[in-house]
């Protein structure tokens, strides 16, 4: 079975959290779901793992004992030690003690958590606690691994380690999906879904998303339409929808070649396109 969701919608009262989202999570790959706070990332992942029943649409997932889910709060029990956390999850999945001990040794070693067995989860650093959460989600060797913002608030060193653990899970054949607010992390995944206000505004590999944005992006001295401009350090970027185009190329600066743009520029251009900002309407 190929895991994922098709055209799911979900509401919380009047709030339309998801408005027709597709997500495909093939085995052996890492699929990133990226978006800001409130974009619908957590709702999407919870629908995928079965914590929410979406109001419409289809969900393809394995039976629950083959799903590993790490919530954004890491899913660890702070008053339990590292070993007790593992024992608890192992018994919840009715793992044999030999399976449990084999997985424990293997995963803790890989996560750089050997030697922490007797420490309370609350006394671990943020990065270590997130890695423990990952170990717990992975313990029962799931087919589908779903991680909600595993790297938020994690320092760069632990973040690189977490990313390696996630990639290893995919390399071992699991279907992995993870939410993140960070584009640099998302663009390293096998494919990316950019969520904004409950809809997927871009889907594909990094190169696919980079190669297919509408309009053009220029680097002007001064932005001519502030609502369509953004800064990158000391330089300015401006997006021109195809229908308008830069009318005066000199004042709008040189159009940038794809090689000069990065993933963030392109995602911003897509967000602007999606939100339909034009000269007459500067608000979002």
């Amino acid at each position: 079975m190929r895991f994922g969701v098709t055209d799911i919608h979900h509401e919380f009262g009047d709030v339309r959290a998801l408005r027709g989202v597709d997500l495909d999570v093939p085995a052996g790959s890492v699929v990133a779901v990226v978006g800001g706070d409130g974009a619908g990332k957590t709702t999407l992942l919870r629908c995928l793992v079965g914590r929410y029943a979406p109001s419409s649409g289809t969900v393809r997932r394995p039976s629950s004992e083959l799903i590993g889910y790490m919530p954004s709060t890491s899913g660890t029990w702070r008053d339990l030690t590292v070993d007790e956390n593992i024992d608890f999850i192992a018994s919840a999945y009715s793992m044999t003690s030999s399976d449990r001990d084999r997985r424990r040794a293997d995963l803790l070693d890989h996560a750089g958590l050997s030697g922490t067995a007797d420490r309370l989860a609350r006394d671990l650093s943020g990065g270590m606690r997130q890695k423990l959460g990952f170990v717990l989600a992975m313990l029962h060797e799931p087919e589908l691994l779903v991680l909600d913002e595993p790297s938020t608030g994690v320092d760069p060193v632990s973040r690189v380690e977490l990313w390696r653990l996630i990639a290893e899970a995919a390399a071992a054949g699991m279907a992995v999906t993870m939410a993140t607010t960070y584009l640099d992390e998302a663009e390293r995944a096998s494919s990316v879904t950019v969520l904004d206000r409950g809809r997927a505004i871009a889907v594909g590999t990094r190169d696919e998303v980079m190669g297919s944005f509408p309009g053009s992006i220029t680097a002007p001295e001064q932005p001519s339409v502030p609502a369509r401009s953004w800064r990158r350090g000391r330089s300015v970027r401006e997006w021109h929808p195809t229908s308008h185009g830069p009318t005066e190329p000199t004042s709008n600066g040189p159009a940038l070649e794809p090689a000069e743009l990065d993933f963030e520029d392109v995602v911003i251009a897509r967000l602007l396109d999606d939100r339909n900002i034009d000269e007459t309407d500067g608000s979002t």
Partner: protein
Amino acid sequence: MIAPQPATSLIAADHVTCRFGGFTAVEHVSLDVGPGEIVGLIGANGAGKTTLIRMMLGLLAPSEGGVTLFGTTPSRHGRRRLGYVSQNLGLYSDMTVVENVEFQAAAFGITPERVALSGELVEMRDRLVGSIGLGRQRQLAFACALSHDPDLLVLDEPTSGVDPLARARLWDAIRVAAGSGAGVLVTTHYMEEAQQCDRLVLMAAGRVAAEGTVDEIVAGRTVVEVTAESWSEAFALLGDAGYDIMLAGRQIRVASPDTAGISAALTAAGVSAALSIVPAILDEAIVAVSSAR
């Protein structure tokens, strides 16, 4: 033509050291932020960033060295000219948006109207801050910090959790503040924020490990990019061989200069792959610097 005057520092640490018992959290660190400048302070957890900031704000006394805020010893008086957004934002979650605005305005002696709220925040004005999303809370904390036109902004991961467009708008606001002469000190873990800074200071193990722009900090550091038919096989193999590896799409980035060893490990296992030496990214530079100490 008159030579430009050396900019006076808005905030400066001069060879500061901070010890907690036998542990040295910060050692001989100097850092200054001038008017109109955006300086990023980066590094792994435990590198000493928070301790340094606390000393610079006068919340912690240095064991050695000196700190000045607006040319003098940090004091409550100086705090008036400072806008500070901490990582936990400093908002009251059981008060509404508008009550938080009124409270902040009163603390800085300004009218609440000067706190410029986005349309979305205005719509949420009567909701408890604890019930609005974290991204919105961040925008609110930011609006409050900017409202009294501070001469110095100190921001701790100012744009984490917000969408790319909202992040671009927050950075616009930071640039506007810098353009009108404010100095900005940003602490961050994130590449995207670091790239927005004029200058970075990278800390590791309590010391300044590198300084400059992203390009200057990364300069000269390279990784080996491995493109293999089967990335998963190559990834597992190089991981088992003990290399520091990172997946980027279907390519593997190996933080090692040892192309011969990487090539041999792959060939021995019958994995065909193309290797090329490419510039490191900032995260890789931070890991390299942090693990070297």
